[in-house]
């Protein structure tokens, strides 16, 4: 799990390759904050996501919202994110409209954005 600035220096990538559960959400928060400090655009790449729990999902929501509020962008590569999608669906996070903060309709949990 790490954050790296891309060669262009304009954006960065957070690579996730381990479970995002309550045991390591603090580490993940630090990575998100680091990315937030250093770049206006971050890509999330799931190299592997063996598991994600509620703490992990709500941290993602918080990070996405924080980026959006600051006019920054956070893009998720959904290619290896079936675990993320399924868990979000199971817990009732997937919805038709995003929260009131999501003026750009880019909410992480919008059905169309999956």
């Amino acid at each position: 799990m790490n954050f790296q600035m891309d060669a262009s220096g304009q954006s960065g990538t957070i690579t996730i390759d381990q479970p995002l559960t309550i045991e390591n959400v603090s580490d993940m928060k630090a990575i998100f904050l680091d990315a937030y400090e250093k770049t206006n655009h971050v890509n999330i790449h799931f190299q592997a996501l063996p598991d994600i729990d509620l703490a992990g999902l709500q941290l993602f929501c918080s990070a996405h919202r924080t980026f959006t509020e600051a006019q920054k962008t956070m893009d998720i590569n959904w290619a290896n994110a079936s675990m993320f999608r399924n868990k979000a669906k199971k817990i009732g996070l997937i919805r038709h409209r995003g929260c009131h903060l999501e003026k750009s309709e880019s909410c992480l949990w919008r059905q169309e954005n999956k």
Partner: protein
Amino acid sequence: MDKQQQAYREEAYELLAELEVSLLELEETPDDDDLIDQVFRAMHTIKGSSAMFGFDAIANFTHEVETVFDIVRSGRMPVTKELVNLALQARDHIKKMLDMPDNHSNENHEIIEKLQALSSNKDALKKTTNKISHESNDIESEIPTDTTPDQEEASEPSITVTYRIRFNPHPKLLIYGTNPFQLIKEIQELGDTTIVAQTNKIPNLSEIIPENCYIHWDIILTTNHTVETIRDVFIFIEDECDLTVEIIDEDGEIEYGADYKKLGQILIERKDIESNLLKETLVKQKRLGEILVENHVTDQGHVESALAEQNHIRTVREKRKQDTSTGSIRVDAAKLDTLVDLVGELVTVQASLSQKAMTSEDTEIIGIAEQVERLTADLRDNTMSIRMLPISTTFSTFKRLIRDLSDELGKEVIMHTEGGKTELDKKVIERLNDPMVHIIRNCIDHGIESPDVRKKAGKPGSGTISLVAIHSGANVLIKISDDGAGINPESIRSIALKKGIITPEVELSETETYNLLFAPGFSTAKTVSDISGRGVGMDVVKRSIEALRGTIEIESEIGVGTTMTLKLPLTLAIIDGLLVEIGKEYYVLPLSAVEECVELTEADRNRSKGRNIAWVREDIIPYVPLRDIFQIQKPKPLIEQVVIVEIDGAMIGFVVDNIIGEHQTVIKSLGRVYRGAKEFSGATILADGSVALILDVHRLSLLAESLERKTVES
């Protein structure tokens, strides 16, 4: 075999079909608990009913497979391709055992041993990643799940109630080791649920304590369990959350119809907004939910939740309405066929009655005949609709075929379907299976390239086969497309020349060239494979489709792909026909094929100088004089009629004496004596009791073509 055993077999076959679909979907989304549950339930039901009806071998075999899926269900074993492969093999073996006339079939120990080895393999078992899992997780997985659905249902109250559950955990819930996923899962197991997680309390990154719980839930649950049972789910955390459980709908409220409370009513009832604020807001013209959010009366999450509740209750009430008004029974297909035949007879008798009534000039009899006509039409439409089945029933079987064949050939193929709800007569669907299997085999074998070749061509490694069904008037179009290499018309032409199917001087359009693929013995495959390419097939496919009174067309582009379009009638029992007369004999042409009718006068014949061609708005249309084909000696009228039909994209005319008009044609098969008369696809009885033959326009055109050729040669 007694009726109960027959019913058991039918149900088991249906469950096995569902099981196959679930397993194939599970392969694509291995984390989907709903699919894992579906697979487990199918196995469980097959096991239970097999034991009940004395099919012990099937019950024992299925029990072993079910046991493995119980381990998967408990989260202790992941879904892998190997597991899906073995489960599919097990499903095939159960089907084989069911196919046996007796129930003393052998168990396949090899599959069971492999499954057991897989489930006992420590490496395959999931390591628990969440160390702070809810205590009841482990307890649940150890509880034997051998209670039958009947036993489970026995303890439930029969009234179905819909509850609104508002579950608001305290921040430390996760730290204390509670797993909300498990709680939600337990609630879901109680009935139909709509779950909306509220995210409005999640703070920004700088403020969030990631181990705290900020999400709260609104859950709408329709169940026949009591409030106590629902509260029991939360019993271990009742001090760590705020929980309300309210009844919002129950059986007996059907008099209100499917409609449910308005959004504003729900929000006021939940105390999410005040009624005076709602009234003020309603003055504006936007959608209520948008207005409320814009005015910060409530947030989007609460609106979403209220809308979810509204939708849930509407669905529950619709379902309840349907359950009380319809229900379903299982009927033997042969009985349905008899019913359709009888309705066909009735349509004929009714036509006869209407004709007699019109000639009687008795207004009372005419009135009764009109009533009978209306009722017969309704009865006919209703009866035909009973035999209609969605095409998805056949589409789903091809998923397995595509999976297995692509594996065998080392190709990657994704199946895409559209229009699965399109309905066709049961008989058409049954007889469509073999031709479609052949076409799909060809797509995978000859069409879709191997992943390496595709990547070199700039295509994604996985090929796609699309099955699309759409209505087109009285027909259904089924398009089978692949994004493979396409068909090279030059190769087709050179093979056709080599095989003597065409001569070098023949010039063919692209469509005509593709149609050569349907010539008997034609094959473009350079090697013969087990999958296709034996040079038999496409001609058989075409004949099978034509036997269904359908057509097949090919479109292709090199490097882009191929589409085969099957045009099929909705039903085989009754068609709209065009009744015509030749020398006092009656014939019927399928109305769906008819483009237009034009007159043929002596002057027209002179203009074409002895050739069988008609001039229609500057177009030259060849025609077949049916009088000559059928060797009718009676004198022809001065003005004949040409019925123009479309065959394989070309227009061709059939010359008849008179056109009587449209006719509801109840198709009767021809007797053995007339089996050789391929130009007739059946017969029908007219209102006066006489018989009219139904013309097979395609075969008639071929016959006319061959007669013409013989004349030219001689």
